[in-house]
Structures are given as structure tokens and as C-alpha cells.
């Protein structure tokens, strides 16, 4: 079983589009479970010192997979997220 960490980065309380991103990731994670990839979904606060220190300025909503920001300022499709996570798992 491979593990992939996915951070959904947005403001707290989460904005509508950040929630949309989280749902997309959850859907992709459900699918990936069947092919043996464990997805750990975390929520990160875009305005916390930790996130800024780690990634710099981001446009919300952003998505980081295994500590690399792959998507920002848009809501990706669940197929795209699935592909990105698969690439990270390899």
C-alpha cells in the first residue's frame, strides 16, 4: 500500500471553492483506494505562518501533493487529481 499526502490549502473557515476542491480530492481518493494507493487528505490554512513559510504566497484554493503545490487558484477535475496522485505514488 502506497501512501500519498494531499493538502487542500485555503482560508479558514474554508471558502466555497476550497470545499469543492476537497470534495474532488475525496472522490479521487475513493477511486485510488481500489488500486492500492492510500490518500491522506489534510486541510491547511493558507494564512498560517507554517503554510507561508513552506510554500510562500499562494492563491486559494491550492492543492499540494507530497509537499509540492500542483494546483492553485482553480478547482481541478477529479480525473486530473487522480492522475496527479498516481504520478506522485510512483
Amino acid at each position, binding site marked *: 500500500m502506497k501512501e500519498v499526502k494531499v493538502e487542500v490549502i*485555503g*482560508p479558514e473557515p474554508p*471558502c*466555497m*471553492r*476550497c470545499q469543492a476542491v476537497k470534495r474532488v480530492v475525496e472522490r479521487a481518493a475513493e477511486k485510488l483506494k481500489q488500486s492500492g494507493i492510500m490518500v491522506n487528505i489534510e486541510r491547511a490554512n*493558507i*494564512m498560517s*505562518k507554517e503554510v*507561508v*513559510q*513552506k*510554500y*510562500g*504566497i*499562494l*492563491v*486559494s484554493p491550492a492543492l*499540494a501533493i507530497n*509537499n*509540492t*503545490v*500542483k*494546483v*492553485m*487558484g*482553480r*478547482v*481541478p*477535475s477529479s480525473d*486530473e487529481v487522480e492522475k*496527479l496522485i498516481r504520478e506522485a505514488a510512483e
Partner: protein
Amino acid sequence: MDEKTVRALRAGIILAFIIVVISLLIYSRIMAYSLAPQSKPVDLRGLPIWQIPIVYLIDYFSHGTICLLFAFTVAGLIYEFVPKEAITKYMGSGRVAGYGLALGMAPFLTVCSCTMVPLFGGVLYAGAGIGPAITFLLMAPAANILTILLTGEMISWEVAGVRIIASATVALVAGIIISKTPWGKAVEKEHQVANAAATAKIELVKPPLDERLWAALKFAGYLAKQILPFFILGLIAVSYVEAFLPEDIVGTYLTGVTGILIASVLGGPLYTPTLVEVVLGKAMWDLGMSKGALLSWLMGQPYDVANALAVSRIAKWKVVLTYMLIAWAGSVTFGLLYSFLSGSL
């Protein structure tokens, strides 16, 4: 059909739609077809109370739909295609670059309020300091793509242009002043992070063109869904203002120096949802408000209460009060200046 053809076809269809929207606006321009509602206060006054908003809304949407469609589509496109990574990277790099980008990019990055306060926080933390962060914060709501397009189409492009210049100046001045105050510096020190963006990488993936175009339209739809309900409620309120606010009250209180003072005070705390301030401004302008007062009214947006509350969670109340005061003084100054220069005081 292979995947490539399908993608090209999809991109083609979406592009065609976008071109149609843009040409509709150009066509209306060429034919001198007004995109602002045509009803005059007198027309509304004779109607039964429940009919006033209906007549006004029908009037508005029969004219304004093209404009709204255009504004939302363009906002969606710009937001999707603006190079976010490059901007965010340079925004935190230094003071001059920070100020420049805050002024230049705020209008394009912040059609959605949910990105504005986080970006303010980001700019502040990442080392550009409180000055550019404040500039960004003030510039964003005052001169974003949607409001400027609507101001231009509904009121006049002259007012829209003056609004951009005035907002930019005030935002810049407020940023510089606050970065010099002791309480501004205190907030800056508290929030600065040592070597930002040192540990992790940013490698944005670019989806194919058809998906980006589709995402742009989807975002346009999302914006419309967020804004339109408030916008329609606002229009209903505006219809009653047009119908019942007597011209002589507007003539007495919303012209000259008093007009500018009153309009600037009303513009802020009277929290109007995005875009409604444009329509309400137009209604009062029709009733006889002076140009300078109109500008002060429109510039009241950045110091509204909801915004201030969100910001005060990061910055201190002193900072918020200072920038509200500067923004207010700026709206009065530019209102007076504009009245004086256009000879309509």
C-alpha cells in the same frame, strides 16, 4: 475520433461562445444600444408598489444582460489565464515590486472575495511588508475587473477611468503611510516569516487548453451564482430609491461639498454588495447627484465594515482604522478634485 481532435473541437466550441459574447458587446457599442436601464424616476413613480421592482428588473435585464454576461465571462477568463505563479513569487520579493504588483495585479486576482484576505495575509507574511499588503487590500475591491466593466458600461468610462486612478493613488498612499506608522511596523514584525518558501516546491500543472477554457467559464458561472442573488436584491432596493427618493433631496444633499462628504460617509458603512454600488450610484446620479459625489460614493467600497472585520483578524485595529481613515480622506479629496476639474461642483 482520437482524444486530440475531441479536445481541439471542445476548445473551438468554447472559444466560439466567448467570441460571440465579446462581439455582442461590440455590436451593442456600434449600434449605440444602451446597456443601462432606461426607466426614469418619473416612469416608476406612477406604478403600484409591487410593480416597481418588476418593471425595473425587466428593464435592467433587457438591457444589462449582455453587459453582465460579458463582465462575468471576461472576469473568468482573466482569472484563469493570469500567470498566478509568477505574480505570487514576485509579490513577496521586495517593496517596490510588491507595491507595483499589488497595484497592477489586484484587479485581476481578486474577482472573488475569498482570495483577497488570504492574499493580503500572504503578502504580509512573505516579507513584502505591510505597505504592499495594504495597497493590495485597498486596490482589490475598488478596481476589480467586474466593477470597472460595470461602472464603465452603466455610468461612463470617464468615471470608471477616474475611479481606477483615484483608487490606485489612495491605495498607494495608504500603504506607504501605514508602513511608516509604529503600529504598522509592529504588525509587520509580528507576522514576518524567515526565508519564506524555502522548504517546499511549487510545480503547477497546466491542463490542456479546452479544460482551462471550460474552467474559466465554470468560474464565471460560479461568480455569477455568488453575486447575482445579492445583485438582484440590490436592484430591487435601487428601484425603490429611484421611485421614492425625491429629486430635491438629492439635489440639496448630494451635490457640492456637502454632497461629497455625505456620499463618502454613506459609501463605506452602508455595506453594499459588490456591483450594487454601481447601480445605486447610477440611480442617484439620474436623480441629480453630482459627479464628484458619485466618485466619492464609488470609492467608499474598500472601507466597508465587512472587509475591515476580516482584515482586523490579521492586522491590529489601529491599522484597520488608519487605512479606513486614509481611504475616506482619499475619497473626499478625489471627489472634490474631480468636481473641480470637471466643473460640476
